[in-house]
């Protein structure tokens, strides 16, 4: 799992001030597959996810040790520019967060900040991205209406489309369905199943059943440590560590 990984974490520790939030994590994320991060809340899943595109840089007092390699080079090297890194390793948040702009402008935002100016090209990108995010048919007649008027599920798929528009290679998703109803959740899950044929995807989820449905690999976290990881089916049926077993059988919240 480590060798062929698109992105991998090695002996990675993260501190919020004096608080040791991630403890010597080592884990690889294979390309064109979906890895789910699970564990009780507060165990560090979101923290790890944010470490993969350095969104943690925005939080004051964060310190890291160890490496995160994207195709072999450490993203925490001092000369790394976070702008191209985040273009490559994009993120979908727990709460859908479209900009207060039109649907079109939301999707065109990414390509625009990366220098695309041609209207016709932007139109193509918007259409392609919305199609890839399985949202095109629902919004193609109202691209100029405000994105905030969409339903929660549509907003989340819009955020995924907005991300796809910058042509990322890795997609990070932090509990992307936790604010959605079951039907919207199903749609997003279907979409993610489709996207993992092309992208390296890492999803944080609270929901073991969801992890079982969508993920190829699973990593279980507890109190800032990675307890175990492996192929989803094996880990779910045959956990080797007692914390994993306790969690799976519902002995934690």
């Amino acid at each position, binding site marked *: 799992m480590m060798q062929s990984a698109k992105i991998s974490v090695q002996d990675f520790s993260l501190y919020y001030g004096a608080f040791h939030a991630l403890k010597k994590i080592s884990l690889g994320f294979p390309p064109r597959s979906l890895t789910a991060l699970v564990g009780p809340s507060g165990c560090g899943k979101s923290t790890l996810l944010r470490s993969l595109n350095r*969104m943690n840089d925005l939080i004051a007092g964060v310190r890291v040790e160890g490496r995160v390699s994207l195709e072999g080079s450490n993203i925490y090297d001092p000369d790394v520019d976070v702008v191209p890194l*985040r273009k490559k390793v994009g993120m979908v*948040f727990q*709460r859908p*967060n479209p900009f207060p702009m039109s649907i079109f402008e939301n999707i065109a*935002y*990414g390509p625009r*900040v990366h220098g695309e100016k041609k209207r016709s090209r932007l139109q193509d990108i918007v259409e392609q991205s919305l199609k890839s995010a399985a949202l095109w048919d629902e919004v193609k007649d109202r691209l100029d209406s405000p994105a905030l008027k969409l339903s929660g599920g549509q907003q989340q798929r819009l*955020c995924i489309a907005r991300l796809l528009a*910058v042509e990322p290679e890795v997609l990070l998703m932090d509990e992307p369905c936790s604010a959605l109803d079951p039907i919207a959740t199903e749609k997003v899950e279907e979409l993610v199943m489709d996207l993992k044929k092309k992208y390296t995807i890492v999803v944080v989820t609270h929901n073991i059943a969801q992890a079982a449905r969508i993920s190829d690999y699973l990593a279980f976290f507890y109190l800032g440590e990675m307890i175990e990881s492996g192929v989803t089916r094996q880990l779910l049926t045959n956990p080797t560590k007692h914390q994993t077993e306790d969690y799976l059988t519902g002995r934690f919240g």
Partner: protein
Amino acid sequence: MKKRNLAQRTAFLLIGASAVITFALFALILGYVLIKGMANINWEFLTTYPALMGREGGIFPTIIGTLVLTGVALLIAVPLGVAAAIYLSEYTKGGIGIRIIRFAIESLAGIPSIIYGLFGFAFLVTFLKLGFSVLSGAIALALMVLPIIIRTTEEAIRTVPDDYRQASLALGATRWQTTSRVVLPAALPGVVTAVMLASGRAVGETAAVWLTAGGALKLPFSLHDPTRPMTLHLYYLAAEGLSLERAYATAAVLLVLVLVVYSLAIFFRQKFGMKRR
């Protein structure tokens, strides 16, 4: 139980009474000035020059004076104030230096406006040799309204949800792209409110322009010409006993202008508030 009810009723009564008194005072002042002033306002009064220092004629150049001074002051203060607000809210983390700057801005807001006039006279008019002019008056006004613009804009920027910034940065946008393309547009109604509040202050200001803008009763054709805004004209008309009728008429015009500006500010503020869900 009865006692508590009584206390509650008394409190409500007192609170209600103070609200009524406040409103009555506002209505009284407004009504008094408007009634005494409106009688003498007509098209001629608004469009002709004063004669005999204002004993006769209209107030045309002073209306223009007010508009020009306010306009130039805003041209100076808005870019400066918005830039300062962006810097303070988006690019700093609140060290000791920033606390000092904030303290300075708060203090600037508390300085009596005559001090701005005096400073303008000593520094702009005399030392920089800008003379009694639109420019001197506008700079003094700009300094005076700067804290309003900074504070109101900063407030607006702060209410922009962090989600937007995160979304933008996570797409690989730079800090500046995030600020200019997402944060500022989202904060725009607040910036407009800031501009309106600042205009209201500038339109109604007397002391800061008294020692800086000069007092010429002609149209200013360049930034270096002296000018006389309505407030100053009103002051001369009343203080020197030139024409109390015209003083009230000028006051009424001024009041209407200020009311319009503040109504716009409130309108934008409310629209802004509603957008926050």
